[in-house]
């Protein structure tokens, strides 16, 4: 047993988990502030300076409220569902490389060779929390929310998986660290022509990569139940959807699970399309621990920017209707992602990239 490996892994797990949980609380705060600013309001600014202690107040409120269990629910599954909703997004963070190296230790908890498949596998378990919550509540609206959620997740997982195949055609590896390394060597995948301005093939490649990015980000929105696709919890139609019967910390777990899923999704998008922790001109952690810290900061800055994008989209676009959502997923994004793979393959062969 390699005690150094175990020790550093434990430290990384504790630090990353703590950081992400903090980030999650502040994502809730940021959501409220951003939504307020977009709607010409001010948002929560009472608790602490500029309202920065609001997340702590919210957490305290969640914890101190009565743990209420309705009489008509299926007790075991009713209590199990919120935990199941929270766990998968937290596990997924394990494979995301959130920094280069710090004191020679790679800044990723588990650098496994099936990285992106692991992400999809665990993310696909996220549906159980919602479906179970809807079913165990034994009530109409939560049940409809759960059924909607399961069909939505099955539909959009296809686009999610197909959208990243072009990347792995380029990289030739499922390991997320090698995706980052490829982007350091060949330019970010959202704009592969950077640094290689005269190569026509890279300019052509930018088009399918952008389509891939669009499909992926839309599928992530659908997977995390963010607003244009938040049909499982549509307040106006389903009175809150799958968490209608939940209160206090059980509701809090559903709520925070959604935000952690958003952070994880942003982290994966950053890793796949925006070069992970890489910023041109900044060396990696092997040149000194200060650069290692800067790399981590760069990664989380990119994640924060994407979270802002998610919030911006949420407070701009209206919700899709149910049949529109299904038609969009099956008849549009699925096909476009499939064609995209062929286009990328042709470009790769023709230009010998």
């Amino acid at each position: 047993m390699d005690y150094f490996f175990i020790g550093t892994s434990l430290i990384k797990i504790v630090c990353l988990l703590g950081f992400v949980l903090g980030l999650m609380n502040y994502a809730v705060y940021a959501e409220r502030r951003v939504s307020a600013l977009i709607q010409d309001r001010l948002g929560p600014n009472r608790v602490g300076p500029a309202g920065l202690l609001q997340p702590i107040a919210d957490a305290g409120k969640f914890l101190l409220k009565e743990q209420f269990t309705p009489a008509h629910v299926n007790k075991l599954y009713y209590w199990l569902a919120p935990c199941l909703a929270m766990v998968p997004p937290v596990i997924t963070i394990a494979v995301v490389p959130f920094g280069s190296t710090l004191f020679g230790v790679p800044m990723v908890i588990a650098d496994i060779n099936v990285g992106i498949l692991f992400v999809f596998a665990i993310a696909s378990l996220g549906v159980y929390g919602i479906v179970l919550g809807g079913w165990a509540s034994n009530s109409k609206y939560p049940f409809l929310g759960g059924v909607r959620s399961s069909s939505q997740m099955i539909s959009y997982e296809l686009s999610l998986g197909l959208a990243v195949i072009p990347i792995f055609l380029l990289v030739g590896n499922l390991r997320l660290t090698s995706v980052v390394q490829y982007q350091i060597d060949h330019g970010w995948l959202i704009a592969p022509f950077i640094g290689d301005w005269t190569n026509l093939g890279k300019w052509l490649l930018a088009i399918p990569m952008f389509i891939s990015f669009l499909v992926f980000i839309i599928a992530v929105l659908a997977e995390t139940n963010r607003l244009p696709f938040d049909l499982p919890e549509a307040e106006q139609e389903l009175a809150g959807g799958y968490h209608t019967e939940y209160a206090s910390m059980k509701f809090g777990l559903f709520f925070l699970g959604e935000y952690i899923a958003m952070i994880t999704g942003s982290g994966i998008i950053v890793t796949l399309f925006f070069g992970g922790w890489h910023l041109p001109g900044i060396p990696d952690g092997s040149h000194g621990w200060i650069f290692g810290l800067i790399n981590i900061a760069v990664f989380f800055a990119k994640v924060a920017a994407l979270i802002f994008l998610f919030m911006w989209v949420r407070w701009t676009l209206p919700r899709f209707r149910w049949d529109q959502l299904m038609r969009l997923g099956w008849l549009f994004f699925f096909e476009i992602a499939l064609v995209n793979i062929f286009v990328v393959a042709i470009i790769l062969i023709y230009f010998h990239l």
Partner: protein
Amino acid sequence: MSVFLFWIFALMMLVFGVAVVINRNPVASALSLVVSFLALAALFMSLDAYFIGIIQVLVYAGAIMVLFLFIIMLLDLRAEELRKINWVASAGGLAVALALMVQIFAVIGRFSLAKQTFPSLAKSTSDDVHRIGLLLFDNYNLPFQIIGVVILVATIGAVMLSRRETR
């Protein structure tokens, strides 16, 4: 350590496998099956088959079981819980199953290689996705294409079967 983990996951898989069969509630059965599959994926990983383990979680736990749950909820099968058990038929079925188990144990008991431990691999992090991909597109190209056709046929069949009769 690995022995300990093996028995933990094997027991988990078997216990939840039994739970699939004996649960009266179909939703509870389906969820037990998910846990059983997750433990099985862990066993696959203990055999250094990372790709297969992840595919197991992705396809079985993530897609097939969600489909099962979806159908169970759609059909609302809770009413079936109250049915009486046919004890004679159940005992007969169990007897046949036990006979099968005894037979399997006897075969494994006589299998001389079964007492050996697993040989060590050359390097711990072999790129199994790469190797499986090469095999799949090289040696097993025709079966792979046939599988594609099978999935297409299954998709068409599922769509045809679940379409409502229009008169």
